[in-house]
């Protein structure tokens, strides 16, 4: 389980933040049995550096969503290990994973997943309410200002645009100061303007707050906002790209598809 065992090229741009915020070691995930067996993850080892914004990309069925689910403690590995900081999720039961998730993980979903009955402010505070923790009002104000929701806090999700809803979801992911924020196709349901706003905000969260972010996406434009892109195919890490641009990402993707 040592970091040196990773076959991937260690990132050279992670000097400050003090090691990996999340990592997978020989992660294997098998769905189904017998002939219907699918190896969604086939021995993935990867690290996500603290304070960095990392994108995971790959064609459909490459295992990128599965990897994220397992790292976030939403799903369990068949074998191998999933770590968040010093916490090994693989040895935990469901109850402990729930706790680990609560204390260490923030989520941004593709489908927003806001509670329709709560106002924007209440939705943002929800993880703290669930954990029974006090709201740090300064931090809350800072987050809300950063995502630009100041005057919309009293509104219900149905009164907000898709972009605004996703920014509420992003604020919700940040407010509990999680070790890692996982974002699952966060721009999938947004138009290009809203996408740009959200991604800009995520970039700032990493730069200004030192927030570790792991984002699954299939959009090279979205990936270009990240510090590093990890490419998956057929359940394996096949490539990485530091300081990506949209064009560079697109080229890698093309070659990946061609290689299959």
């Amino acid at each position, binding site marked *: 389980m040592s970091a040196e065992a990773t076959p991937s090229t260690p990132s050279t741009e992670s000097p400050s933040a003090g090691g990996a915020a999340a990592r997978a070691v020989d992660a294997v995930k098998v769905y189904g049995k017998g002939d219907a067996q699918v190896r969604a993850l086939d021995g993935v080892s990867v690290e996500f550096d603290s304070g960095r914004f990392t994108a995971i990309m790959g064609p459909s069925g490459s295992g990128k969503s599965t990897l994220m689910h397992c790292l976030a403690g939403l799903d369990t590995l068949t074998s191998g290990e999933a770590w968040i900081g010093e916490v090994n999720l693989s040895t935990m039961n469901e109850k402990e994973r*729930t706790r680990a998730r609560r204390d260490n993980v923030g989520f941004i979903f593709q489908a927003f997943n806001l509670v329709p009955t709560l106002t924007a402010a209440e939705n943002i505070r929800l993880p703290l309410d669930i954990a029974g923790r006090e709201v740090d009002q300064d931090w809350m104000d800072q987050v809300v200002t950063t995502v630009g929701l100041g005057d919309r806090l009293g509104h219900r999700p149905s009164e907000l645009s898709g972009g605004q809803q996703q920014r509420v979801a992003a604020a919700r992911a940040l407010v509990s100061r999680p070790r890692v924020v996982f974002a699952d196709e966060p721009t999938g349901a947004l138009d290009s303007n809203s996408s740009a706003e959200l991604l800009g905000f995520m970039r700032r969260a990493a730069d200004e707050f030192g927030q570790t972010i792991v984002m699954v996406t299939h959009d090279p434009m979205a990936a270009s906002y990240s510090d590093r892109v990890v490419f998956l195919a057929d359940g394996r890490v096949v490539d990485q790209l530091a300081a990506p641009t949209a064009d560079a990402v697109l080229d890698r993707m093309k070659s990946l598809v061609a290689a299959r």
Partner: protein
Amino acid sequence: MWRLTLKSIIAQKIRLALTGLAVMIGVAFISGTFVFGDTLNKAFDNLFAGIYATTDVVVRGSDAVSAEARPPLDAAVLDRVRGVEGVAEVSGGVAGTAQLIDADGDVVTTGGGPAQGFSWGGDSSLNPMNISEGEAPSGPGEVVIEEQTAERGDFSVGQEVRITLPVGTESFTVVGLARLGDGSDSLAGATTAFFDFDESQRIFEREGLLDEISVAGDGSVSDEELRDRIREEVGGDGVQVATAAEVSAQQSQQIKDDLSFLTTFLLVFGFIAVFVAAFIIFNTFNITVAQRARQLAMLRAVGASGGQVTRLVVAEAFVVGVIASVIGLLVGFLVAIGVQALFRGFGASLPTTTLQLEPRTILVGLLVGVGVTVVAALVPAVRAARLPPIAALREDFSLPTGSRTRRLIVGGVVTVAGAVLIGLALSSEGAVQQIFTLLGAGALLVFVGVAMLAPLVAAPVARLLGAPMAALGGVPGRLGRGNAMRNPLRTSQTATALTIGMALVTFVTIFAVSLSQTFAGEIDRQLKADLVVYDEASFFGFTPAAAGSIEALDDVDAVTAVRTGPVRVDGDTEVVSAVDPALAVDSYDPEFTSGGWEDLRSGTILLQTDFASDRDLEVGGSVMLQMPVGPAREMRVVGVYEALTVGAMLIPLSDYVEGFATQADIVLFVNGREGVDPVALQGSVETAMEEYPSLSVQNQQEYKEYIEGQVNQFLGLIYALLGLAIIIAIFGIVNTLALSVFERTREIGLLRAVGLSSRQARRMVRYEAVIVAVLGALLGAVVGVAFGIVTVMAVEEVSELAVPVGRILVFLVVAALAGVLEAWMPARRAARLAVLRAVHTE
């Protein structure tokens, strides 16, 4: 989290309101019954406290046999009581039946309450009655009528009134009206008349006798001390001395016991309603949890524990339960007023006072309402906690359903366990209450078991029921059937609420019709007389003078009078019947299995088969029989019979006359002379009975119809009360349909977008509703028929099984129509969906 609970309740207010309504109705009925019962009890407490307000000690015949049939006292006891030191005043009275006949020639009734007459207590301070108009009765032919009785019969001072008494019907002049105390406590529940003392002794056949002596002390000793002194002087065999407080408490308690069956009876239906409501809560919460699966999974994903999600759902149920129960308690008052009005509507006047709210009513109402809601929501709540958090990330996620095999096994075990309990109850020899508790628990388990099994058959049955709709109803028919079939779990859970009501309706119908037929069969086999005479207005019997006037008719050969009364046998109070065996030979055949009428003479007894076998008695054995008057007698068993209509024991009339202070016939069997035309016979008996307007003269056919009518009347009452459970079930179906339509907003919008007309959308929902309703009713009919057949076979008293298929089919048709009704609101909603918005709904 609490905020989330409240917000989600507010967001779901309509569907939760419908759910709460079901609980509310149940709680209202239960608390209303309590309020009604408590008010009635309080009113009787007040009434008896009023009657004995000025009395300190009461001397009466002993209740060794039964409180309803006390032997009278010798009039000489009065003077001996007067002589006891510490006694200031004594007053002796007699009482008996006095049916007042109004100007139309009808008996004034209170719907089952007694028609009572008393000797007037005079100016004595012991007389609780006051003359409010006119004067006191002071000689033969004079009567004073209690105010409310007078109002009921439209009597006024100076009027002539005919009164049927133990000595026959006589004419009296109303000389005054009377009220109890200042008139604030009502004597309602009975008709009451007062007569001069000597006149009373004559008309109530109490010459030289007294029924009750009231005593006022001079204040020198306590009531208890005075009681003990009087007991010392006159106490002994057949005489009971008690303080007024004891007597009024005891009389009040006796009436409460007599009436407690009423509240128990009503409570049973309240609990059935709550049970049905539980199914609806269960169903609603299941659906809302499924609809919110993504949201709940999201909570899990962002760190809520399974327990927190469970608590969230349970808290919703708790709040709904509390609100519904509190409203239910308030509505309970209206129910109590309604029940009172209902009784008044049926002509049964009961004493009233301000509505009583006991802490017990609040406690039980809240406990039942909140408890049932929370318990019913528990399974959906736990299921919600099992949602994998990853469900929040998937578009097409649906809640996993349990395995069919497990459902089959668990449902089967629960059903069988219920059936076993029912079997135990029906074969049990234990106390009535124990049997009913077992029966109730068994039925409950069977319903739960059937509800668990129902999803297994729901889809194929819905396919079958929907076949004609799919064939004839075009696209909406096929879509409606498809909707009913696509979620068998939900369809059957919705339908099951109706199953309960339908099963109970079917069950009581089968039982009642079987009972009717059993009676009719018994009458056919046992009744040999041409005519039957009985009192329509009272269960307490009627004057033997009636039999006398029939006997005097030329057309009549013989009149067999049947009398009944309470006796003690082995420490139990039983009812004995008495006839003249020489006359009974020709009029009534109780289907002897051994012995016969010819064996019945003084000192002997005939026993009903079951009664005899329960006590290991057979011909040659003997029974110690304690009648109200005289010492216990050893009666030799000379015959055993099967008939249930005449009670458990038959003794010769001559022995009855000695053993009972009051002689009243309960029924007469009349035989005409050879060759007399039956119609002419009935005509002449009816003419002779004009003196006794409450007596009904019927031939065999009419008598059978009368019995059937009585059973049907009772059946009607039970239908009305079960209607409550059915209405709740209907609310449940409306609720589920509305939720389903809401859930399929997008799908219905799509259908509309591709050309389904709004009328077709409405029909589609209606078809689904009809299938669900008929499915529930059909299951209910099956369970009900099974309950009915088993019960009829187990109950010895019901020997003929009748399954009224026609009537059950009518119930099913009604259920189908109810389905159309239920679909009204949800169908309208489906039809009015704005197509574009519906398609874009998430």
